[in-house]
């Protein structure tokens, strides 16, 4: 299945149906196709280096989606960058990706980017260009097969974000699976809650666009203002709900969040973190006609590779939910420390082998070699996740390293620590997760401060948080700050994380 051809088909046959809706702003399939054609035509006149990535900056304007398609039609992969990403981090992404061009669907305060030598197109220019209705590049320039379709930046333990390259073939493998194994039929309404810089958004974006569905955007303004959020949800006529478990947990706080508010909702898709059984239980009761799916997968294997339908029976049988069965074209190996394949029931690192596994991190050979390899002629990825399987049903049991998920956001503890160390008042530090009901509630930082003139600790914390916010997105900033004269050490001179975790558990 070719993603662009499938969307083209819908644009030709149902040009007036709505592809994307954000509040009152809508985008029809006809316009989506025409706008992306015009943008692709313009981009090809720029003579950018072949296959060089193009950054698309913004939040959830309809033009984001037109830009993604325009970029891939012109033969380039796109890098989605959400407005919530701080400028210093955007600067790092520009430098490390070697991006050739930047498209703004919203105004980016360019003054705050240092050496912003990257050629760009402002929101106004973009609006003019897509209105020209010029014919796009021929289908021969479209991104295809092993070419990168998109590159998504995720937290890296070195202190810098790393770009996961997803090819057209990777994406096709994922979207085909969504069509085949989930109750997704034509012309539905899909909810899009995750910003496009998270690959959870891909779980609704392409399955929706290839079935003529409407994507209904949930913006950060709506999430910050629950009154508006629920007003929008009520009007949305959503059929397919895709979100993190944390987001639906927030919605469950509202007693009106039931099948009466969303009578057409028939499918819940969850990914990004462990789905708590109590959340699943509540949803089954409040939405008796909806089917709930728990899915699992890292960005490196294109959104998700395993799924299971959550039923009352499944909940009765398991105290924590399985991550499901692996999709048909993919294999999951469980290996021990000596790279030996383990048998049923034995715990080990989960390795994903198959056509949706990325070729690696953009421009990061060492990191790529560490995590990716070839297994019997197919691309394989070491997830760093620990799990086991019983007769093909897979279970997740933790991490081999310091990667954590906080409210569905994936991050490397070391990246936070590395950025904390750059702050002017921090001498040394360690960050530990604080758990509540088996999920991470928040992150706590232990800091040995440098000299400062603040009277109170909260003032120091506030100053450090503000400095940190320049380089890290808000969800990566620890909530609790503790100060000490020195960090506890183990006998071999390493920071004693276990002792700190034990302390915060009390």
């Amino acid at each position: 299945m070719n993603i662009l051809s499938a969307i083209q088909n819908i644009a030709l046959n149902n040009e007036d149906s709505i592809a994307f809706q954000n509040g009152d702003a809508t985008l029809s399939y006809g316009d989506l196709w025409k706008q992306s054609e015009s943008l692709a035509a313009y981009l090809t006149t720029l003579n950018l280096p072949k296959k060089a990535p193009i950054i698309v900056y913004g939040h959830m304007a309809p033009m984001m989606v037109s830009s993604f398609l325009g970029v891939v039609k012109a033969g380039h992969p796109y890098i989605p960058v959400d407005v919530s990403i701080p400028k210093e981090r955007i600067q790092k992404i520009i430098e490390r990706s070697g991006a050739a061009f930047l498209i703004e669907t919203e105004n980016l305060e360019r003054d705050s980017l240092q050496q912003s030598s990257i050629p760009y197109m402002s929101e106004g220019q973009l609006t003019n260009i897509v209105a020209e209705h010029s014919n796009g590049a021929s289908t021969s320039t479209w991104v295809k097969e092993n070419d990168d379709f998109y590159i998504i930046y995720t937290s890296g333990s070195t202190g810098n974000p790393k770009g996961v390259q997803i090819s057209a073939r990777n994406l096709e493998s994922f979207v085909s699976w969504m069509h085949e194994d989930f109750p997704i039929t034509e012309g539905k309404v899909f909810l899009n809650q995750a910003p496009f810089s998270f690959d959870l958004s891909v779980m609704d974006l392409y399955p929706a666009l290839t079935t003529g569905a409407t994507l209904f955007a949930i913006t950060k303004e709506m999430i910050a203002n629950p009154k508006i959020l629920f007003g929008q949800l009520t009007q949305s006529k959503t059929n397919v709900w895709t979100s993190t478990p944390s987001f639906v947990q927030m919605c469950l706080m509202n007693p009106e969040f039931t099948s009466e508010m969303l009578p057409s909702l028939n499918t819940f898709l969850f990914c990004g973190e462990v789905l708590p059984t109590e959340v699943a239980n509540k949803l089954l009761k409040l939405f008796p006609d909806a089917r709930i799916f728990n899915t699992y997968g890292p960005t490196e294997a294109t959104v998700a590779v395993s799924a299971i339908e959550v039923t009352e029976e499944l909940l009765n049988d398991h105290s924590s939910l399985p991550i499901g069965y692996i999709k048909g074209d993919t294999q999951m190996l469980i290996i021990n420390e000596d790279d030996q394949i383990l048998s049923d029931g034995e715990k080990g690192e989960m390795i994903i082998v198959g056509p949706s596994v990325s070729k690696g991190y953009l421009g990061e050979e060492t990191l790529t070699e560490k995590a990716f390899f070839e297994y019997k002629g197919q691309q394989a990825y070491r997830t760093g996740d620990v799990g086991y399987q019983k007769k093909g049903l897979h279970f997740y049991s933790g991490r081999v390293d310091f990667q954590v998920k906080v409210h569905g956001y994936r991050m490397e503890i070391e990246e936070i620590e590395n950025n904390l160390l750059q702050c002017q008042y921090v001498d040394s530090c360690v960050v530990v997760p604080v758990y509540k009901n088996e999920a991470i509630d928040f992150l706590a930082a232990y800091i040995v401060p440098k000299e400062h003139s603040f009277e109170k600790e909260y003032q120091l914390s506030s100053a450090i948080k503000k400095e940190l916010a320049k380089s890290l997105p808000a969800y990566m900033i620890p909530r609790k700050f503790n100060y000490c004269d020195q960090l506890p050490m183990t006998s071999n001179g390493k920071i004693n994380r276990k002792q700190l975790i034990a302390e915060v558990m009390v």
Partner: protein
Amino acid sequence: MEKQKVYELLAEVCQEDVVVEQPDIDLFEEGLLDSFGIITFLVEVEEKFGISVSITEFTREEWNTPNRIAEQLAERV
């Protein structure tokens, strides 16, 4: 309901004692409370005080300081 009890609960959620010492501090401007913190707080309010506040009633304009949050809750007892 004592204001102090509300402040102490907020301090637990925000992981910061300053909310007890300075009840007029802006929780959102100072980065002390985010969307997930709000939920945690409202769940605790229901469990500890038996006051049920719908998340749609909670606006950042009216619930931005410990003092104002305590006043809002007092109206709902």
